[in-house]
């Protein structure tokens, strides 16, 4: 500023490139965004009061007045008397301490639960590695195959000295992650093929089939697709062939998610200018080269937000398997609450479950925003 006055009369000075101090800094931000008028000041104060109150109450309930442990009687049954007394004013996190293994791993044999725990770690590791763009190479496919095989071996066991554990005993978080991961891994390629098929001009039969598939699946609720998979599907199978329940639910999920994702992908294909495909044709690229190098990379980039939106939706929809008797994370929460001493502490349980779901969904949404930003940085429009 002093330079400006010192060199008065000179039109352009370095100091002049900066906006005046009154327009920058936290105070300026506060003034323009929160206290710009009488009305906005009132709203700011009212909302501020509500936010502070809620945070205060939550901290009092969840931390200050919370009960972290309860005594157990001689039979190993929890004595929840203290929690009952504190009900309403303090959370009873002793419930989580007592039940977390049941909720996370279901009825998987207690002393073998390191196996599903390792599976969860492997899943998360797989997500993290797949999320990093520098690992987006052909080898990643191999990493997936190997990891998923290891996950299968860990869950089932039966070799390497691990006892065999049938799928009926699986439960909790691994079930949720299995349904979501295999669901995404298979429904996405399926969706791409269906979306391409639906736009095919010289294969009318394929096009019809794709339209039929999408419209049929989209026309019924997920619950009924699950019911069909669990109840009706076995009726159509020849006697003796027994496809297990989890696999049937998995297939139902893949088919259901595939139909929705196909429409999202088709939206991206539709939005791409016709000239892109024509230029690829004119260069002599084959259909699959054109699709793989030109069309899909651009079309998918356009639909990252709705794609992730759909994925997040399906991650949470995996909890619907409870209606066909598969014990995913949410179902196990309900099961844990059926234990008589804990019956009245559902709030604590659902808060804890919500934290897990939010962690996964928030990671997905945050990642999609970063991905979009990174992919768009290279190409200035």
């Amino acid at each position: 500023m002093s330079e400006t006055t010192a060199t008065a009369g000179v039109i352009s000075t370095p100091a002049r490139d900066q906006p005046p101090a009154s327009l920058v800094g936290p105070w300026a931000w506060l003034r323009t965004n929160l206290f710009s008028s009488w009305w906005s000041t009132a709203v700011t104060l009212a909302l501020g009061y509500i936010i502070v109150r809620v945070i205060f109450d939550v901290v009092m309930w969840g931390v200050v007045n919370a009960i972290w442990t309860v005594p157990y009687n001689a039979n190993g049954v929890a004595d929840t008397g203290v929690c009952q007394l504190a009900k309403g004013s303090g959370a009873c996190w002793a419930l989580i301490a007592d039940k977390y293994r049941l909720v996370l791993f279901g009825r998987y044999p207690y002393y073998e639960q390191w196996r599903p725990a390792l599976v969860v770690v492997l899943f998360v590791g797989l997500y993290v590695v797949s999320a990093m763009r520098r690992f987006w190479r052909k080898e990643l496919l191999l990493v997936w195959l190997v990891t998923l095989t290891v996950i299968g071996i860990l869950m089932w066991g039966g070799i390497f000295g691990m006892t065999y554990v049938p799928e009926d005993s699986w439960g909790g978080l691994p079930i949720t992650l299995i349904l979501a991961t295999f669901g995404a891994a298979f429904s996405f390629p399926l969706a791409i093929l269906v979306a391409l098929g639906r736009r095919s001009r010289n294969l009318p039969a394929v096009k019809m089939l794709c339209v039929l598939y999408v419209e049929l699946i989209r026309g019924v609720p997920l619950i009924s697709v699950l019911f069909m998979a669990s109840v009706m599907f076995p009726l159509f199978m020849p006697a003796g062939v027994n496809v297990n329940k989890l696999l049937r639910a998995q297939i139902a999920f893949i088919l259901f998610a595939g139909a929705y994702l196909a429409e999202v992908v088709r939206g991206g294909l539709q939005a791409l200018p016709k000239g892109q495909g024509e230029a690829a044709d004119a260069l002599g690229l084959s259909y699959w080269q054109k699709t793989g190098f030109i069309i899909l990379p651009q079309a998918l980039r356009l639909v990252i937000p709705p794609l992730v939106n759909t994925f997040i939706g399906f991650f949470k929809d995996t909890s619907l398997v409870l209606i066909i008797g598969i014990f995913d994370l949410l179902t196990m929460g309900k099961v844990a609450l059926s234990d008589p001493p804990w019956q009245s502490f559902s709030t604590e349980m659902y808060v804890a479950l919500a934290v897990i779901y939010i962690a996964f969904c928030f990671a997905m949404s945050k990642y999609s925003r970063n991905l979009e930003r990174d992919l768009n940085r290279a190409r200035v429009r």
Partner: protein
Amino acid sequence: MSAALQSSVDRGSNVEPAILLDKVNKWYGSMHVLRDVSLSIAPSERVVVCGPSGSGKSTMIRCINRLETHQEGRIVVDGTELTDDTRALDTIRREVGMVFQSFNLFPHLTILQNCTLAPIWVRKMPKAEAEDLAMDYLRRVKIPEQASKYPGQLSGGQQQRVAIARALCMKPKIMLFDEPTSALDPEMIKEVLDTMIGLAETGMTMVCVTHEMGFARQVADRVVFMDRGEIVESGEPKSLFENPQTDRLKLFLSQILRGH
């Protein structure tokens, strides 16, 4: 000019044409957009196609590399007839390069990748060789320094020159241009036209839809005038422009001249 005409006539008489259209008809639904279009273009001939908007110029040129299909008549390109046979189509697409009005560069690939994609995957050229070739053509269109940028970072004129280089990287025998300068600001038109003039001097067979009459006079061996799906008149640029035979061409020329 007369020498050029002479040579084209000579070639036409004893050499197989590079492009032959024989009574080609095309309909969009019930709209008849190409009516009995017949045209024979000799190797190394430069043909400019002009005509009012909607007269079927784009449709005709796009039929030559089968971005559009014709319904009647024959189209033979470089000795291969265009049919539903996909192998014939692959052969022809390799030999025919195309430049579009709206450039149609691939925005998610760098300039260099735009140029090397087809040579690598269609011509099965080793990557290093394809890159050398691409740099060679980028130098010829005078933008080698932009190779690692993305199309969105270039001006319209630069993008169109990349599009020309991209097509040339496939070493085509024939180049098709559909109004390559219509989407450009006036100051960029010249740089693209200069590139095309340079290309014409190498003896490339060229079919170019354009309203740049200066370009047509300087480069074209023949100008074809289309109206309502028909070839109305064709001939050497000088005689066609100075001595139009039909009222339709006279009207068109007067409108073009008024517009400029």
